């Protein structure tokens, strides 16, 4: 098979020692930022954007993909071992993982999370390998109006699902679209919203906005309400002895099915623009809770291993799924994917259906490095977990001061303009208020990337049809997409309701304990 040949060539590239080092660097940094509260892979990729000045595209994309995968692994360590009661409901793994750690089974929870992530990551990467060429073959025939339809779906789902409140998600999205308008219009070269300020002609850099929202905004927000006192990291084993109990035979038996189910829940959700990993972890958790029987079912809420294995697998599979629309259609559906697309653009590479044709070697080396990176991550996360626990204990003043320094570095190194650091601070303050008032920040970043692409396709579509608006719903593909959109919204309404129900159920046992 031709694709297998391409993949093998990709492996030949990615297995060169220097690329292995880049992959190792990526997954290492990725795990570290995944472990640290307050920073995630999107922000890290944004902060490391300066490496695109000196590294060649393949190396940079391998680093970024490693950070992306690594971030998914690292997050589980935090949610299992960090003892921050009451607020972890948003991170599904913490529901059971935290309880397992309290019961002295932290090592088993970490192991099932790491192995599950590996299994899911690998299977999902295989799916990506085979699915991507098929989608490209199909996408190559899509016209502008079809892309408009796809991006409408992306906008609506990202705005509606990436946060708790739909209207706030939409506001964040529109703000991103608005900022994306500033600068020179791609089609006619007219200036828009620049007010004659030279610095605005090139538009406001998306990296600046991402770093401002994620790094500075987060630092300001944490500064305002920082948790005082020591950081309570739980030990991996039992309190008395340090004989950390690893996964028992029973744990394996209870884990492998959730791993697989999580994979097949996570991957499809990652591929459709449904807001990435969060939805998939919740669905996987709900499925495991429902499927568990007998005494295992009773363990839910008190540290059931299925509740860690499933969601962790789902979240890694979703991460691979997100790469499908990114690499085949050029549509980012998460903030990290948006940053990776920005990195492509820095190299004058335009992701889209033609990417695999024009930059096939790069794409296949990237995919091959995902397989390798997954294996590295398994090794990094099983024996070296002690190292990550140490990172978790970094005193928070240094952590957030460091984040500020990195953010300022990222902003300044864009154009070496002091004004950029000033804009960074302004956007940081905006990010602070958005967090304060419950606006999700991720839709804004994705919209800044998607907005200009959307406008180009929309205008092209209308030009072809000579301004006939009905052209926007003229192809069978657009009918399918808009039809699916309606279905998705009906479904998501029920999912959200179920999620609310689950969260309220989840609180009850804790209340009983405190009495």
């Amino acid at each position, binding site marked *: 098979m031709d694709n297998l040949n391409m993949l093998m060539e990709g492996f030949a590239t990615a297995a060169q020692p220097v690329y292995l080092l880049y992959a190792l660097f990526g997954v290492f940094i990725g795990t570290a930022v995944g472990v640290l*509260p307050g920073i995630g892979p999107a922000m890290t990729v944004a902060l490391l954007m*300066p490496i695109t*000045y000196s590294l060649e595209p393949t190396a940079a994309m391998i680093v970024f993909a490693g950070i992306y995968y690594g971030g998914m692994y690292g997050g589980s360590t*935090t949610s299992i071992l*960090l003892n921050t009661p009451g*607020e972890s409901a*948003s991170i599904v793994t913490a529901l059971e993982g935290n309880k397992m750690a309290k019961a002295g089974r932290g090592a088993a929870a970490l192991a099932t999370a790491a192995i599950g992530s590996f299994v899911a990551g690998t299977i999902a990467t295989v799916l990506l390998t085979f699915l991507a060429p098929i989608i490209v073959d199909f996408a190559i025939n899509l016209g502008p109006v079809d892309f408009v339809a796809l991006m409408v779906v992306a906008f609506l789902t990202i705005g509606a699902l990436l946060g*708790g409140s739909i*209207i*706030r998600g*939409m*506001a964040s999205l*529109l*703000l991103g*679209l*608005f900022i994306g*308008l500033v600068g020179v*219009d791609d*089609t*006619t070269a*007219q200036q*828009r919203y620049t007010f004659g300020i030279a610095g605005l002609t090139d538009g406001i850099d998306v990296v600046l906005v991402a770093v401002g929202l994620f790094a*500075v905004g*987060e*630092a*300001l*927000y*944490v*500064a*305002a*309400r*920082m*948790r*005082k006192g020591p950081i309570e990291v739980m030990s991996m084993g039992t309190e008395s002895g340090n004989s950390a109990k690893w996964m028992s035979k029973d744990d394996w038996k209870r884990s492998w099915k959730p791993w697989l189910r999580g994979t097949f829940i996570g991957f499809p959700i990652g591929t459709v623009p449904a807001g990435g990993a969060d939805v998939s972890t919740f669905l996987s958790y709900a499925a495991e809770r429902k499927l568990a029987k007998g005494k295992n079912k009773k363990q839910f809420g008190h540290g059931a291993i299925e509740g860690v294995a499933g969601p962790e697998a789902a979240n890694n599979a979703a991460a691979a799924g997100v790469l499908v629309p990114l690499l085949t259609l050029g549509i980012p559906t998460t903030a990290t994917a948006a940053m990776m697309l920005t990195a492509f653009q820095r190299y004058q590479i335009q992701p889209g259906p033609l990417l695999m044709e024009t930059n096939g070697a790069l794409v296949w080396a990237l995919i091959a490095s995902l397989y390798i990176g997954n294996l590295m991550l398994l090794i990094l996360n099983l024996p070296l977990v002690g190292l990550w626990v140490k990172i978790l204990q970094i005193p928070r*003043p*240094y952590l*957030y*001061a*460091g984040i*500020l*320094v990195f953010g*300022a*570095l990222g902003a*300044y*190194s864009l154009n*070496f303009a*002091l004004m950029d*650091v*000033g804009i960074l*601070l302004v956007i*940081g303050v905006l990010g602070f*208020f958005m967090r*304060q*008032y*419950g606006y999700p920040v991720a839709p804004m970043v994705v919209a800044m990337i998607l907005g200009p692409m959307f406008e180009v396709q*929309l*205008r092209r579509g*209308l*030009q072809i049809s000579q*301004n006939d608006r009905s052209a926007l719903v003229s192809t069978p593909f657009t009918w399918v997409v808009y039809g699916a959109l309606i279905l998705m919204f009906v479904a998501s309404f029920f999912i959200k309701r179920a999620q609310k129900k689950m969260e309220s159920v989840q609180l009850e046992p804790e209340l009983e304990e405190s009495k």
Partner: protein
Amino acid sequence: MQTTQKNLGEVLFALVFVVLGVAGVIFAGTIEVPDLEFGMGPRAFPYIVSSLLLVVGAGLVIQALRGQLGDAEDGEDIDAEASTDWITIGKLAFFVIIHIVLIEPAGWPVAAAVMFIGAAWALGAKPFWRSVLIGIILALVLQYLFGGLLGVSLPRGPLLEGLEFLNG
């Protein structure tokens, strides 16, 4: 008292969206349209985005006035019970501004170290000398990695004049 204050803040923040929407609609009219342009032109999308911003902003204002407030974001390092500490935020913003002022006259490493030390102090790091030590080391390492190795042209500043390996 606390809730009314938060209420007011949310209304004001929602008004920002309305104001942006209005400004966007007004200034979209000033975008020049080339004569040869057919199809949508450069004004249409700004009109669409701005008017949607206006509508959503109005919805948010109404929600906030009715008392339907957003849930402040959770996080591992966030104390949900604590009230907003504006003084610390002010201190952090102040040190970012100091950083901007210092980059060109004093060089990036000095500006970065000052910002780190200031921010760590504002966030309650103790003892002070340790922040100073970490700040200086971090700034020099970053200058070496990004300026020296990756070739990002960060100004070294007069203090480190002559240290070629730090040069961007």
